[in-house]
């Protein structure tokens, strides 16, 4: 590909201090460990993993919502280039006009004391993107229509809406400032299946209409398979596999990806219990195992896995994995 990536992450590390000590440095918890990935413009990039795998932290690091310990994140479109880690206050504000977040829980994300119109207009006012009230109203109406909310909805308060409608309001607020890049962190996890499909379709049509790039964070592989064109799998802060969706689901290489796929409960009652089950639980990130981090649960683990950290290798075009055995 000759196209330049919109987001380029190079050896990113995010660490949090574990408690405080009187002298010296406290022990650090490494939530994201040496992650490198590129997100192309217009891509629907999926990030999957269990809870505690660091996927949310990675998403937040890209938005500079958590401090970056080391490594580089660059954001580059046709007009600007930002080194996300080194942004000063004013530049950070400009960057956030371009990179936005959709939250998981539409019940917690909307202020109960504001009307829907005010909720959607708030980013425009805070960022000073519009001068007059008429201009603000016009942009709010425009984005609301794109998210299938009508004028009547704008006058009401969030309590009058169902989960799916609230998530549409939340999406409208995210998109009102015309961002290029959106992190959707478990944005359909709290919704019922019948509504979930509706929101997924909406995100897809908005991406086509507005030319957005998405980082879609989810624990649900079947949702990711449907909506994303590229998927990366995370385990304990590191990437274990990444490939275009089709390749990953047709030909998963890393034992962790295979286990995740086979753990999805099948809709066919005749297909019971023949899945490859994973033993144990994800270890604490405060005390990660040496070597390959997955070796404690890996059904194929060898001696080497317990000592050496596996390299991130290209298996076939655009398909990467970090495992000694593939």
């Amino acid at each position, binding site marked *: 590909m000759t196209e330049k990536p919109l987001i380029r992450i190079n050896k990113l590390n995010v660490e949090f201090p574990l408690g405080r000590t009187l002298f010296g440095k406290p022990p650090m918890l490494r939530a994201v460990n040496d992650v490198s990935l590129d997100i192309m413009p217009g891509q629907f990039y999926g990030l999957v993993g*269990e809870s505690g795998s660091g996927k949310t932290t990675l998403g937040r690091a890209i938005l500079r919502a958590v401090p970056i310990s080391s490594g580089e994140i660059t954001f580059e479109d046709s007009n600007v280039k930002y080194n996300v880690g080194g942004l000063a206050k004013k530049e950070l504000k400009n960057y956030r006009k371009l990179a936005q977040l959709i939250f998981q829980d539409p019940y917690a994300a909307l202020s109960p004391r504001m009307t829907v119109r005010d909720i959607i207009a708030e980013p425009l006012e805070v960022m000073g993107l519009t001068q007059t009230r008429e201009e603000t109203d016009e942009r709010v109406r425009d984005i609301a229509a794109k998210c299938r909310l009508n004028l009547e909805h704008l006058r009401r308060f969030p309590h009058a809406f169902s989960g799916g409608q609230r998530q549409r309001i939340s999406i409208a607020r995210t998109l009102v400032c015309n961002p290029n890049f959106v992190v959707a962190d478990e944005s359909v996890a709290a919704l019922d299946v019948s509504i979930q*499909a509706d929101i*997924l379709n909406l995100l897809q049509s908005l991406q086509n209409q507005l030319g957005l790039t998405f980082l879609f964070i989810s624990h649900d592989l079947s949702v990711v398979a449907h909506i994303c064109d590229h998927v990366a799998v995370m385990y304990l802060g590191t990437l274990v596999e990444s490939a275009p969706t*089709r390749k990953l689901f047709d030909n998963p290489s890393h034992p962790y990806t295979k286990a995740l796929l086979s753990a*999805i*409960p099948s*809709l066919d009652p005749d297909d019971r219990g023949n899945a490859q*089950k994973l033993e144990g639980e994800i270890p604490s990130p405060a005390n990660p195992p040496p070597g390959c981090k997955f070796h404690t649960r890996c059904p194929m683990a060898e001696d080497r896995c317990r000592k050496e950290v596996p390299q991130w290798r290209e298996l076939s075009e655009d398909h990467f994995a970090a495992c000694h055995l593939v």
Partner: protein
Amino acid sequence: MSLLKVENLNLQFRTDEGLITAVENVSFEINAGEVLGLVGESGSGKSVTAKSLMQLNPSNSVYSPESSIKLELENGGVDVLSLKSPRELVVVRGGAVSMIFQEPMASFAPALTIGYQMVEQLMIHTSMSKKESAALSVEMLERVGISDAGKRFHQYAFELSGGMRQRAMIAMALSTKPKVLIADEPTTALDVTIQAQVLDLMKDLVKEFGMAILFITHDLGVIAQVADRVAVMYLGRIVESGPVREVLHSPSHPYTKGLLHALPKLDALDEPLTPIPGDIPSPLERPPGCVFHTRCPEVLADRCNSSVPQRTNVGQDHFASCFAVDSTGKAA
């Protein structure tokens, strides 16, 4: 002989806005050794139905006079809704009926050890001594696959991981040897890999203890994996019920079909997702006639909005309440 029989359960909540119908004409039965799956979206009344089996609904709930919940035990039947005092209710609250909740962190008391809570309930429900209760509790913790059970027994809920807490919850619910186990979204808060472990464990335990399980979930995949029979709920009514294979392979009710179509499937990645149109109506604006007619793609103009469809037999032991299906199970 069915172990638990629910007939014509009608439940309303008294609120400032008037009576709100939560459950309407719900009937089902579960046999010993059987898993009945209860599926539905949020607001469909599945948790409220489960809680009425233990009379755990708040004091503003009103059961209609024809509602009946019968429990068959060795020493005679129990009419659950006629139980009044907390002392009488012990039999359905942890005695013959136990419950596993969705969020194990919220269901354990944070300031008491796991062991203390397990022993406490055994002392209430059985005639065991404290020592025997403690021994049984540790044994149960081992049985559900908790390593180092002796140590875990003395720990607090926050010291265990999510999967382990849910295992401890199951151990606690099963230690009184209940006849009926109610599992309300027991795996929803867990990761898929842990969910698979917990589902396996529950399947083993049904075989071993031979109890009846009412398994509540919104996830049809989980239902396909554990249930023998399934009942689909929408706005307080059971719209379809039958053996799990029948219902998932040849669904009759438009709502069940809609749920299945809306689900992303790994073996059909190119098929577009079809959401069920519209949103679940607010309980204050309960639609007349068939409750699903406001969102139904197969709605019949003159019937569905005025009269309530009756339960129709659409296959062996397979029922649906819909005007658009006849007894062959196909659209009329």
